[in-house]
């Protein structure tokens, strides 16, 4: 089968929000001898990029994004184990976390998905994460990017605390810190010493890629 056809099918399966179709397309890619890294980067990731752009422009909404992300992960689950051990998918590393006191993690999960789609290996620290755990995950993974999220206004202080602890770790100069969530603003990012406030996941990916 033509490689272009398979790549288009991988992308289209994600855009169509069809997890079984994405999984089948990934299996076809391997069966046809396609390089799994190419299948990821030029197939699944292209599809997720279209979804991300549409979400940022409010042409698509969260239900579709979640199902599209599931579709991408179904494909990744087939393709990633097939990558030869000496071939690295990426060298970029990021940590994502919802700060301590907040358990609303949908936005963070979308950021994680879009970073993955952009070639990052993402260490997802989860939700209600103390600053010390963010720092540990950042150091353990030699992260180049830390993305912090909060949905609620009371936990903006936890975000400030996490950034403070990153500064105190001595690693601040080596990492890009972005923040997101409805109550945050660029002015707040600057005030607490983060690099950027992201309006959405797509903007986050564009920003960090512009800095790396």
């Amino acid at each position, binding site marked *: 089968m033509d490689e272009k056809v398979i790549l288009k099918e991988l992308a289209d399966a994600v855009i169509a929000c069809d997890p079984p179709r994405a999984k089948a397309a990934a299996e076809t890619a391997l069966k046809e001898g396609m390089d799994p890294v190419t299948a990821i980067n030029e197939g699944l990731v292209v599809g997720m990029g279209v979804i991300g752009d549409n979400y940022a422009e409010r042409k698509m909404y969260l239900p579709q994004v979640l199902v599209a992300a599931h579709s991408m992960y179904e494909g990744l689950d087939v393709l990633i184990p097939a990558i030869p051990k000496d071939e690295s998918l990426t060298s970029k590393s990021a940590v994502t976390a919802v700060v301590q006191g907040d358990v609303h993690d949908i936005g963070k999960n979308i950021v994680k998905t879009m970073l993955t789609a952009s070639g990052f290996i993402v260490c997802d620290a989860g939700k209600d994460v103390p600053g010390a755990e963010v720092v540990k995950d950042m150091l353990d993974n030699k992260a180049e990017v830390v993305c912090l999220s909060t949905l609620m206004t009371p936990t903006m202080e936890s975000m400030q605390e996490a950034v403070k602890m990153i500064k105190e770790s001595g690693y601040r100069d080596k990492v890009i810190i972005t923040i997101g969530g409805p109550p945050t603003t660029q002015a*707040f990012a600057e005030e607490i010493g983060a690099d950027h406030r992201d309006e959405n996941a797509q903007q986050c990916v564009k920003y960090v890629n512009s800095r790396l």
Partner: protein
Amino acid sequence: MKQEDLDRPPVAVFTTCDTIDMMEACGAKWPEAHSDPQKMATLGCAQADYFGLESVRAGFCLTEEAEALGCPINMGTQRSSPMLKGHPFTYNPMKKIYDEPDNLPDIDEFLNTGRVKTAIDAMAIMHKTHGEDYVVIGGNTGPFTLTGHLLNTENLVYSVWTEPERAQKWVGAIAPYCKAFGQAMLDNGADVVQMSEPSASTDILAPTDFPVQSGQFVKDCLGGLKGMSILHICGDSAPIIPYMLDTNANGISVEEKVPSEKAVEIANHRGCLVGNVGCAFPLFKGTPEDVAAAARRSRDAGFNIISAGCGVPIGTPADNIRALVKAIKG
């Protein structure tokens, strides 16, 4: 609330407003004030007693109903809200494993459980001490949001795309609890029920999905209440303001993400408009002058009640809340 002509609009926070300064001033603090009716009432009244706001309001979070329906909760600290620690029902649209909404508690039992009962009891205390001079507001959670708490919001939202009827079946089964809680607060002394439905915001649901997945059930909850109600939805609610008003709530509460003038134009006097002074900025991070300017903008645009646009951050400076009041009351 009745959109009558007044010399000035009231200044009253319909969303949560329980700052550290208020807790220190009145002596009723989180987390105890979430579970003790007297402390809840004392803290709920502090916004009038210490800041001159023209409202008193309780409770202070959106986890009361979820806990009463089985969610495990971490009650938080003085500086952090109660948090859900899990979900009592299985609802996994990716693996297609679902519980059905068949074995939910009896509604009377729900109303007598935990912090739902605390809030209902607090309404009677607040009505007795402040009801003559202030509007008593009882806060509750919208049906789509509460259903997400019980099932896992991400999974519920996922199923809006893959199995919308299943999502609606669950939200429809949960809505009677929201209505019963609201009515019980009204019956026990509240003047207004303020329902928050953040999970149905346009950051999550498409505007066209709102009436089907949330709005029709909010209408069941608020439209038939014997008493007044306000529906609050966070984010840029401009595209769904008409749908919010279709729920037959007496009014709606919107954030500063909808420009004040635009909100007034879209609402077109179909209901009372509450808001929309920004919480993160200017209330939390701005100066008193910034707050006053935002309050005057809401007033001049034609908002019926000047309020914070969403929940007031716990660390909001007292001077900023006083500036909100002074800008309107003079």
